[in-house]
């Protein structure tokens, strides 16, 4: 089962990473889910696919009262991101799912109705969680055409969705990046193939370089901390993407 690990805590403001499920079947890609709790309000970032719902729910409820979960954030529309939506709605039919406007009529195929979705405009928006303002940061075409990161300016954490993702072998699946050069090898093929636009990549690198980030948290793989955040942005800026060679 997944475990919930606290990656940030300051008073009633907390970030939990729900990670690493050793019992996960090999045919399902591993995913990281993050919970941002501020007081008695919380938002779950990229809640995951339906098949990993038991692991996510049990890890979350071990550390947090799931009745307080009223918001979901979906970086984009993929099944490993949000196909568990209908299951979360079983617990709280009033739950709100924040997602790019582009996907608000596609994702209801996974569940929900016109009351469920809060459309994020292309330029991004703020999402209020327990009085804390989180920022939906545009990351379009990286990889999805309607794609957002979520930045917490107080915690200085950027949830980066698929950006920064790495497909780690079991012997190197620590929660944090410890050796950047060794780690980034597991991220390279993923970024070359999945990130479709060099221009969008440069825009994103320029945007996030100006932000004060202590942790960059991807949806797959390990979390970048401290200097590794800048190392990653520089590495990504120089990577050739959107070119398939076969």
């Amino acid at each position: 089962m997944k475990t919930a690990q606290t990656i940030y805590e300051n008073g009633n403001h907390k970030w939990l990473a729900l990670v690493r499920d050793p019992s996960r079947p090999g045919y399902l890609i591993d995913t990281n889910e993050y919970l941002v709790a501020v007081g008695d309000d919380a938002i779950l970032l990229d809640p995951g696919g339906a098949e990993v719902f038991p692991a996510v729910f049990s890890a979350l409820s071990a550390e947090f009262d799931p009745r307080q979960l009223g918001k979901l954030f979906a970086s984009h529309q993929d099944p490993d991101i949000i196909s568990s939506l209908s299951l979360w709605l079983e617990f709280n039919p009033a739950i709100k799912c924040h997602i790019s406007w582009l996907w608000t009529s596609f994702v209801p195929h996974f569940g929900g109705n016109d009351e469920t979705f809060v459309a994020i405009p292309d330029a991004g928006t703020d999402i209020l969680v327990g009085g804390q303002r989180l920022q939906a940061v545009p990351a379009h075409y990286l990889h999805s055409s309607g794609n957002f990161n979520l930045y917490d300016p107080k915690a200085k954490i950027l949830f980066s969705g698929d950006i920064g993702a790495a497909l780690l072998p079991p012997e190197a699946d620590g929660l944090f990046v410890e050796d950047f050069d060794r780690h980034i090898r597991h991220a390279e093929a993923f970024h070359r193939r999945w990130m479709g636009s060099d221009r969008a990549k440069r825009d994103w690198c320029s945007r996030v370089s100006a932000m004060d980030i202590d942790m960059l948290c991807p949806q797959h793989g390990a979390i970048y901390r401290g200097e590794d955040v800048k190392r990653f942005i520089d590495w990504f800026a120089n990577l050739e993407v959107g070119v398939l060679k076969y």
Partner: protein
Amino acid sequence: MSALSLPAASRQNAGQELRRIVRINEEIKKVVTTAFKINLMAMNAIFLAKRAGQSALGFGVLSNELRRFAMDLQRQMETLRIATTDSVVVVTGLVKQTRVERIFQRTLAVSKGQGRRMVEACLRARNDRYSGDESGGVTALNRRLSQMISDTAQLVELGSVLARSAKIEAAYGGTFSTSLMQVSSDFEQTISDIQKSLDTLTKHQSQEFAG
């Protein structure tokens, strides 16, 4: 069955039920095609009887009846097709609920404390919501489908009698007797094919649905 187990065993067999409905639908399509063929054959038989004149009056009457039979059969098969479509909607809902149920059972197995209590409450609410509701819906649809297949079998039996009578009337067809005999034999063979399809339909329909 515990309060938190599946509300109806039928959900476990929803996939099997869906496959059974697909088989029934394929058989219905065969009968519809054949009924259309009988309609055309009956129209040809009516023209042939007219050409044969006085000696084929009885054959002409039976040809008209066979055409009416073909149209009734087409209508009956359309009703059956709608009934199977309704079944697909209900059973697809069951398949979806089965998957959700399975995921919640897995969640229950790994949850503790408040989370576990929430899953239990959710499963109880689902049981109340769906208990008997969907499986009852499938049972009612199945009963309706069985009744329709039985009605169709009676209609086809009538068609079979008409085809046999047409064969007898063909013997009185004078110089047209051979042609009329050929046409009535074709009717008999085609209606026999429909009966075989209906037997298959009855077999698929009678396969016990665990719900």
